[in-house]
């Protein structure tokens, strides 16, 4: 647990990279070394060098770019894990606009470039735990969602934030079929959306976000099951009532609105106590799943007193 927390603090030390000078992948490892060195010196003020070293010698090793880009659940391109890598290239991500609802300013549509401009682009190495029982570690590039929300004139009494994936059946082949009730929708409480861990990813491994990972603009909520981290967002609405969310409407008994990672609350059809770590190979051992995916120190307060078995 302690190691985990230290890791998060580590990833909080912001690596101030401008999106425009994001490094090509072959230079990425050098950049990481450089950033690590930077992090080490800045952390030296608050911690001993030994603790600082632990921050960066991540116990959880990041998955390879091949693993992260070839094993995806993105049903808009097909239900197989390999479909998104095969078919996601057909999605046009430039230009890309995001529409906002529940804000009082006149301008409600923003080009993605306008949103990213001026934001301190950071790297966050997060665990991703899928509701299906597997996990990965992914080095995202982007900015905290709160940085965006704080720039908007959000309506008073907002209690929830709703997100919507783009609906373009011509570019997303599975949307021609009724696999899910398209467009894909997800939501968070406003407290969850404003949490510093809640992240908007626009890149991955120091590169632009590949289409199969939710380009050009996706949510990452590391303490919730992966399906909450909605991809290719075109609409964000601030609401007073709990919004429609795809999986919890598809099968409310199996998928809840909160869907926090919790080893003690099983999926009705399978256990959530352990997870298979992608990249460990055929003989890899299962890993014990942690409450809130190991981010309990950060997000535990959000759910204080809540019956997690009832609000799964």
């Amino acid at each position, binding site marked *: 647990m302690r190691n985990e927390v230290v890791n998060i603090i580590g990833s909080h030390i912001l690596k101030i990279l401008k999106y425009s000078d994001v490094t090509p992948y072959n230079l990425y490892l050098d950049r990481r070394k450089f950033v690590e060195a930077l992090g080490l010196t800045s952390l030296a003020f608050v911690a001993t060098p030994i603790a600082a070293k632990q921050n960066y010698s991540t116990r959880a090793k990041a998955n390879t770019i091949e*693993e992260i880009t*070839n094993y995806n659940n993105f*049903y808009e391109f097909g239900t197989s894990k390999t479909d998104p890598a095969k078919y996601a290239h057909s999605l046009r991500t430039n230009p890309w606009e995001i529409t906002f609802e529940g804000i009082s300013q006149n301008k409600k549509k923003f080009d993605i470039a306008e949103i990213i401009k001026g934001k301190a682009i950071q790297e966050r190495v997060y665990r991703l735990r899928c509701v299906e029982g597997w996990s990965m570690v992914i080095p995202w590039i982007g900015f905290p969602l709160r940085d965006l929300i704080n720039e908007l004139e959000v309506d008073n009494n907002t209690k929830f934030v709703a997100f919507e994936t783009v609906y373009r059946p011509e570019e997303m082949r599975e949307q021609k079929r009724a*696999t899910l009730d398209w467009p894909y929708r997800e939501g968070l409480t406003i407290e969850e959306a404003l949490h510093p861990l809640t992240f908007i990813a626009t890149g991955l491994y120091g590169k632009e976000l590949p289409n199969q990972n939710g380009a050009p603009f996706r949510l990452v909520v590391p303490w919730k099951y992966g399906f909450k981290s909605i991809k290719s967002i075109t609409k964000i609405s601030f609401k007073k009532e709990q919004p429609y969310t795809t999986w919890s409407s598809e099968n409310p008994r199996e998928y809840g609105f909160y869907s926090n990672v919790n080893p003690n609350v099983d999926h009705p*059809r399978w*256990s959530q106590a352990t997870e298979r770590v992608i*990249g460990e190979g*055929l003989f890899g051992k299962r890993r014990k799943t942690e409450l809130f995916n190991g981010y309990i120190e950060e997000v535990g307060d959000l759910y204080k007193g809540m019956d997690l078995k009832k609000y799964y």
Partner: protein
Amino acid sequence: MTFSTLFRSLPISLLYCVLLTPIPLYFYWGIVNELGPDPLRYLEHKYGELGLIFLLITLSISPLLKYAKINLMRYRRCIGLVAFYYIVSHVCVYFFLDIGLSIDLLLSDLQKRYYIIVGFFAFITLIPLALTSNNFALRKLNIKTWNKIHSFVYIATILSIFHFILMSKTWTGELYFYTAIIIIILILKIKSTKIYKKLSTYSNADISK
């Protein structure tokens, strides 16, 4: 030599070799990490899916003879046993690699997980069939008993498809496909049963009145 005579003269042992080769081959690819980011799940699903496919082929052989006059009866036992070997491999991957030989996990899965329970029963149902798929058993057993035992293959296949449906997050193309095939096979089977024939002659008689 025409295609059909070539096909008819195909030695059974060669057929076994060809149909079973994917088992060690996929396992080897799994070891050398050629099965994608999640080799365990890939191997488990592949063996299971191939097991189901061979079960469906076994069940199609008799309607193929009846409705299309294609005679593959000679290969039915072989294909049925091949299906069983795939399913044994599937169960082995689950037990040895997926849950890592843990009896605790196995017991809790068998108590709580519907898809494991259903899959487990499908596997158990197939064991007597596999054990009696040889000339010795055929000679020893009364043909009626033998036929009765082997009609369990329908139950095993229905359980297998349920196992597949229950573990899926949503209805995929493959699921629709396999379910459609099994429904067609079942309709044809029901049509050929004595009870159905009796009932349909009765209802025809009613209409003619």
